[in-house]
């Protein structure tokens, strides 16, 4: 693959990923990951200090599925929507089989009464595999610039 091809595939993955979450299709969200994967949401301050614990820590696709199970069955919160804007992707260490990529991320959260806020800003630190055909995340670390969460963080970022 040439660099244009890699960039295209990574960006398409990000677009599909954002669409999945923003449209509320949480059941499809784990399918963006390999069976053995790591998904974390952690503040930049904690990430830079090397802390283990953040807001989310899943270390298998099944743990992602369990998050979705909890969101659907046991979690109670007001209806709300996320809108992801992902951009400024930098491709790092690319090869035919995998690459690392870092992207900027802004998530606007809209509550049912209409209140909108910039809920999260930060970066995706991704490791992506191109095998098999469909690119998937081996690791996705969501590093949030703010250490603070407003009220609650229900759905994934």
């Amino acid at each position, binding site marked *: 693959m040439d660099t244009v091809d890699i960039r295209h595939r990574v960006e398409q993955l990000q677009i599909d990923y954002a669409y999945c979450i923003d449209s509320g299709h949480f059941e499809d969200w784990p399918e963006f990951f390999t069976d053995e994967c790591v998904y974390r949401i952690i503040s930049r301050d904690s990430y830079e200090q090397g802390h283990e614990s*953040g807001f*989310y820590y899943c270390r298998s696709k099944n743990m992602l599925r369990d998050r979705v199970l909890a969101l659907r069955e046991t979690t109670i919160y007001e209806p709300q929507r996320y809108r992801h804007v992902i951009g400024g992707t930098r491709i790092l260490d690319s090869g035919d089989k995998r690459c690392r990529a870092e992207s900027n991320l802004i998530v606007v959260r809209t509550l049912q009464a209409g209140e909108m806020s910039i809920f999260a800003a930060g970066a995706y630190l991704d490791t992506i595999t191109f095998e098999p055909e469909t690119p998937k995340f081996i690791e996705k670390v969501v590093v949030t610039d703010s250490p603070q969460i407003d*009220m609650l963080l229900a759905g994934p970022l």
Partner: protein
Amino acid sequence: MDRKPSAIETGWPEEGLTRVPYDVFDSGEIFEREQERLFRGPTWNYLGLECEIPEPGDYKLNFIGTTPIIVCRNGEGEVRAFVNRCTHRGSLLCFRNRGNEKVFTCVYHNWSFDLDGNLKGIAFRRGVNGQGGMPKDFDEEKHGLEAVRVTTRGGVVFGTFSDDTPDLEEYLGPQMTGFIDRMFNRPLRVMGHYSHRLRNNWKLVMENVRDPYHASILHLFFGSFGLSRHTMEGAALLDDSAWHHIVYTKRATDDISGSEYEGGKLKSMKSNLSLADPTLLDEWQEFDDGITNMVQTVFPAVTFQQITNCLGVRHLVPKGPDEAEMIWTLFGYEDDEDWQREIRRTQANLVGPAGLISLEDGAVTNFVQRAIRGREGHEASVVELGGDAVESSANRVTEATVRGFWKGYRDVMGL
């Protein structure tokens, strides 16, 4: 708009601790009185963990109520705390959340203070060419930083503004002190740190934390996966003053047959659910007493928690009558092995603003804040589960622990 008289003028409802006037959750007047009587009064307030400031000169910032505080380690290795306000013109002295300094120098006019809070330097103290400067009789000794009285136990740092606050051990009583010693029994290691902005009065959070009634009802995950149910062995404890509380449960000690948990009678029980990756709930028995869930508060505003092996501090900082910040510190021990650290970080999924068993708390306390608006008279909440008792019980279908908070509150606030 006419201002309604608050509970300061009208008094507490005659029913006593089983009623809480909603005024206390949104009155600006009451909020101001809390700062003076509660947070600057005879209470021990959480300031941090000693492991966060291990070396001389290390400091971190925190708050007691709304007052900004510097917590540091002085040259002799002792923990000190001061109001983070330059005694010259009132600027924040430190504005980075943590760091290491030999002296604290205010950026505004370079007044500097040593690690014991003494004023050590004033820029242009003697003026320039004999002109200007401070008066010759200006007394530096009277212009040190406002000190906070500090005590530590098991590496936990508490501070108080009042000389009337008894020693921490007397303040807590033997049982509560024993539980501090139980968890803070050896050197700690911080594993995570974050903040949770709550759009509600801080006391709604303290009620929530001290309320074992809601735990397995609101938090469906809790009951569904058997983490905590009222049918398990446990206790709701109060010290003699009732200011402080502990609720604990011992998992795997219950039989739900014949209870409301059986057969889906309680909405909170979804016994048909199972985890795709049950290692989420991997655990080991950390304490010999068999306790798997333990929540302890030290009045007024800090909580220590053990959710199986996820250990943490939740420090509540009031930001206004209808806003608060909960600052979380998750920790393990220095001697943890890698597998133990991995279990702790995995269980951290259960807690915090994204926590599988706590996410709803940020919603429900805000629901109260929104619902009490527009009330007509002096309405009050009902805190009557378990009658009007303010005492320990093995039974956790009680709000005695919530009433204990209000007892402490009224004792100090004069309400």
